[in-house]
């Protein structure tokens, strides 16, 4: 339960990644303080405690004055990726022992005999079945005997399982058999964690529900003990505030709720980054953005319209990055819970540039990583990378990375590029490097298209929001190819996940399967379903400590034309439902279908309501939103002597000003390059850059 100290002193956002733990603190004047420390994998709490001391003290704050502790973590996804979850058993319906392992039969790669299906999270001998059956309408056709359940649970206990997942066929329509199994588990093993599918995901489709329930049970003991340990450590330091966690869907939840349904926080970190980008953009006056986050090995894209990010209804962990089509699924572990829709491609600064057997230049997906790293790091890397191309082109400081900690060897990069790429292609080294950059851009554009044009959205209407160590290096080049005119580069792009936490609302989702024609539905019945879900959300939020006036409810519905097999998620208005509003909803669906896919059915074709969902949100008090971030001590103080940078055959090599962000208080035409502690921002010719009131660099392409 939330117990918000009234004399709020500061709020803290902490994002733990594999390498770094980022901390952002905002005090009640809206001043922001940041810190990046190395993660401590043996005990994540240590880095947090140490990092907190480092960021709070200089700000004149202390742990006991933290009013809210907001947290994003990879503990869930790492547990799955490293297969380090609990030893769990699974109870299913007789005849359906292998739903988890058969999956949906699909493989993510064609013509690849070497592909292997990910090992099931529960091995077959721990998957038991019981004789029972519920039909599609929820009627019990074979009753479940309690003694059979007891035998199954005893058998799993004898196998020393650390948790039990339960998923019976058609339980979305009638959960009573699953509830009976839960009752028996509680009776025979009161302390054993368990997950039943009708609680975790009361929706149709047995594989999706089984997989999600199993993942929940698999990571539950690990997430729960992590959160307990973290809470204990922080309380020892004097913290009184509760821990709130970022969920994959972009909303916050309490540590208690996250320990029960850890499946909702698996994509906690990436979600925080997108939420941060969207909220920061809205505060800066941009409501339609494409967030573009480019690091060392991958580039991720996500989209927001009218300040709302987009959710996908399911995703896979460990499925690998997008190879080509998003339709090629089947890898990894499926989670059918809402998550912010992010498309990812294998292109980053460390991506290897090579020539294939057909004589064509290729980028990645192999990456030189941090070790041996790009050729210019001179740490043994012999294969040219995208970063080497940027050094050759004069975009990245050829002497050292801006913090000054890493010396670069530009000549070495040039030699390798020339020998391995330019000569075989019959071009000069500059053209080869520029080509590598442009081809990397065209690969990354695939991620952006996956979330825009493949969903019927024209990217040209959006602002490109550049994040990550390499985002700002490529943003203008990406925008040019996509026809985007406006780019936003926020301060401290590298800390954005931690920053995003401070912007999030507490959020819970509830859903119900309906499967009826819209025109056959009685508005009152539907309204009662809404109310039922709303009551659940309000009850949970009030448990979370929010008062009635802080709570907001949003309605969604999944609909399709009768006979279609994919649904569209449509946002619906509040208020009463009438026959007329049903007609309006039907029309709204047709309009959205046409907008997304370019066609719609004739008016006499009925629309089917598949399921309804509600999001219960608790908006936080208006104070203590992060304001203008502070400049980092490692940033440039003043303009440096210009250097040559190459801008394609149209412009050639140009003298390019090297400037700190602060120099853009006066608008400036490109070419120029902003060098900062954690990123480099390229402003090409035919573009103008300026700072806005939020210290963002706004680049406008002509």
């Amino acid at each position, binding site marked *: 339960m939330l117990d918000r100290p009234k004399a709020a002193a500061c709020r803290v956002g902490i994002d733990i990644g594999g390498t770094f733990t980022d901390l952002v603190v905002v005090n009640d004047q809206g001043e922001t303080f940041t810190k990046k420390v190395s993660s401590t994998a043996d005990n994540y709490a240590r880095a947090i405690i140490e990092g907190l001391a480092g960021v709070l003290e200089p700000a004149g704050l202390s742990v006991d004055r933290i009013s809210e502790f907001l947290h994003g973590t990879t503990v869930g996804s790492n547990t799955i990726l490293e297969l380090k979850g609990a030893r769990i058993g699974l109870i299913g319906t007789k005849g359906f022992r292998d739903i988890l392992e058969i999956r949906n039969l699909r493989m993510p790669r064609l013509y690849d005999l070497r592909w292997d*299906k990910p090992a099931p999270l529960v091995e077959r001998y721990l998957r038991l079945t019981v004789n029972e059956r519920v039909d599609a309408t929820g009627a019990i056709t074979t009753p479940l005997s309690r003694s059979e359940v007891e035998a199954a649970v005893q058998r799993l206990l004898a196998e020393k399982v650390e948790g039990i997942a339960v998923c019976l066929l058609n339980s979305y329509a009638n959960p009573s058999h699953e509830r009976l199994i839960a009752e028996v588990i509680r009776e025979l093993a009161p302390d054993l964690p368990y997950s039943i599918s009708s609680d975790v995901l009361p929706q*149709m489709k047995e594989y999706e529900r089984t997989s999600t329930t199993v993942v929940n049970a698999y990571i539950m003991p690990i997430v729960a003990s992590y959160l307990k340990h973290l809470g204990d450590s922080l309380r020892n330091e004097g913290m009184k505030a509760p821990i709130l966690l970022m969920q994959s869907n972009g909303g916050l939840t309490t540590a208690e709720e996250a320990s029960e349904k850890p499946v909702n926080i698996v994509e906690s970190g990436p979600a925080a980054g997108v939420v941060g980008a969207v909220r920061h953009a809205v505060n800066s006056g941009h409501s339609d953005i494409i967030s573009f986050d480019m690091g060392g090995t991958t580039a991720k894209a996500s989209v927001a319209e009218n300040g709302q990010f987009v959710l996908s209804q399911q995703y896979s962990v460990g499925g690998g990055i997008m190879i080509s089509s998003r339709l090629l699924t089947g890898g990894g572990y499926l989670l059918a819970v809402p998550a912010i829709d992010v498309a990812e491609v294998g292109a980053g600064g460390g991506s290897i540039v090579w020539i294939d057997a057909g004589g064509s230049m290729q980028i990645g997906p192999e990456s030189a990583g941090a070790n041996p790293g790009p050729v210019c790091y001179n740490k043994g890397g012999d294969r040219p990378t995208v970063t080497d191309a940027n050094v050759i082109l004069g975009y990245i400081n050829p002497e050292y990375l801006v913090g000054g900690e890493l010396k670069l060897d530009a000549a070495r990069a040039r030699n390798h590029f020339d020998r391995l790429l330019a000569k075989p292609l019959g071009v000069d080294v500059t053209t080869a490097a520029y080509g590598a950059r442009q081809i990397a851009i065209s690969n990354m554009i695939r991620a952006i298209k996956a979330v825009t044009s493949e969903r019927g959205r024209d990217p040209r209407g959006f602002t490109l929001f550049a994040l990550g160590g390499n985002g700002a290096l490529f943003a203008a080049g990406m925008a040019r190819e996509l026809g985007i005119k406006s780019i936003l580069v926020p301060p401290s792009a590298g800390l954005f996940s931690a920053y995003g936490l401070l912007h999030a609302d507490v959020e819970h989702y509830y859903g119900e399967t309906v499967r009826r024609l819209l025109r056959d539905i009685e508005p009152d019945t539907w309204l009662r379903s809404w109310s039922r879900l709303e009551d659940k959300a309000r009850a949970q939020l009030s448990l979370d400590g929010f008062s009635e006036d802080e709570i907001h409810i949003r309605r969604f519905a999944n609909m399709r034309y009768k006979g279609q097999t994919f649904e569209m998620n449509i946002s619906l208005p509040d208020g009463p439902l009438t026959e007329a509003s049903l007609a309006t909803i039907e029309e709204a669906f047709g309009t959205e279908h046409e907008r997304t896919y370019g066609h719609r059915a004739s008016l006499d074709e009925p629309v089917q309501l598949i399921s309804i969902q509600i999001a219960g949100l608790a908006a936080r008090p208006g104070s203590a939103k992060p304001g203008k971030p502070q400049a980092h001590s490692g940033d440039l103080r003043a303009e440096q002597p210009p250097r040559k940078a190459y801008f394609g*055959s149209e412009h050639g090599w140009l003298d390019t000003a090297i400037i700190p962000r602060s120099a853009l208080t006066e608008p400036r035409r490109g070419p120029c390059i902003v060098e900062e502690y954690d990123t480099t921002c390229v402003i090409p010719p035919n573009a103008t850059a300026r700072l806005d009131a939020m210290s963002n660099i706004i680049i406008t392409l002509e």
Partner: protein
Amino acid sequence: MTALPVGQPKGDDFINFELFKNELFSIADEMAVTICRTTYSGVLRDNMDFSTGIADAQGRLVAQGLTLPVHLGSIRTALEAVMNKYAGDIGDGDVFILNDPFEGGMHLPDIFILKPIFSGGELIAFAATTAHHVDVGGHVPGSNSVNSTEIFQEGLRIPPLKLVNGGKHDVALWGLIQSNVRLPIQLLGDLRAQLAACEIAQRKVLALTDRYGLGAARSYMAEITDYTERLARAALRELPDGEFDFEDWIDDDGMDVGVPIRLFVTVRKKGETVEFDWTGSAPQVRGAINCTLSVTEAASYTALRSILPGGIPNNDGVFRVIRTIAPKGSIANVAMPGACAARALTGFRMVDCAFGALSKMVPDRVFAASDGGNVGVTVAGFDRSGSRFVYVDFSCGTWGGRPWADGIDGISNIFVNMASQSVEQIESEHPIEILAYEFAQDRCGAGKFRGGAPFYRDYRIKVPDAILQIRADRQTIRPYGLHGGKAGKPGSVSLNPNTSNDPIGSKVTINVREGDEFRYVLPGGGGWGDPLQRDPVAVLKDVRNEIVSASAARQEYGVVLDEATLSVDQAATEKLRASLSAERGNATEFVNWVN
């Protein structure tokens, strides 16, 4: 240092070429997304039985979107038919439709929608889609029946026609189609999705030619296929030259029950090209499992592509270096009026057969026989409200053992990459109950690397009467094992599996009544390598997971387990393996169909 290939873009142009290529491929993908997300049928959504692509003005395929291997090369054949028939009469705003296997199609359910794209009055490209429709009429719902002997029984035959002429829809043709199919709303909805995909492609291809210019766009499209050809040639160069042949068999065609049908292929590899010659395969048969040449080509491509490195695009450049030969009038190249609705069955077996030949070429890269292709199930009738239902589903199953690992249990056949339909969804949409869907014990072929475990499915009918149509195979001629591995166990189809369990054969159309139950069991994957060399710990794991029984562990693998402690009895195992080895002799025969 490799020299720059002739014709490759020079200087800055290589950058534009790459950008153009990426863009064109992503347009083809976007077409696929449009179809998949708006389809009315589980066959398209889950089985993903559709393909999209963009061809140049000569009809040569340049970029293919998500594609079932079974469709590889089919777009080219369809475009050829249109260009032959409409030479000089292809105009801006036309959209062509066809499904006739004897004029560009593959089998009647696969309807092609092809749209020429014009820029400045000049034809520059074609947008192409093909999709499997749930029903196109004919004597059995689902239009998939094996039990047709002529194309005329199989449904509505559409030669290459203009569905849209100069932007104007041919209302008569739409009407004719609507009247000849069982589920017109679904079919027309799916056609609409195909049209939308072509519209999107047109818009984006035109943006691309605006940007790069018509001349450059043409030369880039040509270069994309040349580039692909270079990749394919480079990959083929690495393979050993020689002639490699193989035979495999289909149980029967469902008409002449019990008469096996021979498939025979000779793979001739020389330098940078390869030939798949299907001469020696059986003459075309009465049942509807005859293949068009395009299916035979797709099967040949699929097997070959599976041993080549990834990253080679699917387009005309690949087709140029692979030649497929099949005598007209054979099962591999059907002549009028042969029936071919269930031709995929033969396609699957051709893939098995071609893999067998390739295993002689590169033994360490090819797996033993998979389940032999999917089982097709159609249940149709009227539900209690009087509405017609047609449930069409294809399930496949499992891979053969691989030279480095076991075959995968529960996976799509390599020829299709189909997903299963959700049991709960099937039950909510059709008056059918599914009683079981899980792995069957002791059905996989033994081997150092065992074949994948197959699954079985039980169904119960919930309406007074319905038609059940099943297409299966590998019930007598089993999935072969390789290099000492044993054959997979055969599949089966039976009625009332929990009581009388009456076998009903592999290819049937029968009437069923309320309460009737039926079961199919998929064949198991073939094993790879001598089972006596299998790691006993792997056998133990299979026994513990009840994929293999303790008695089979002894008999097939020579592994003795101490069931109390769940461990391998090392001494007893060594002794048993020695005696089995002496008894069996040298278990390294190349191929094994029998045990």
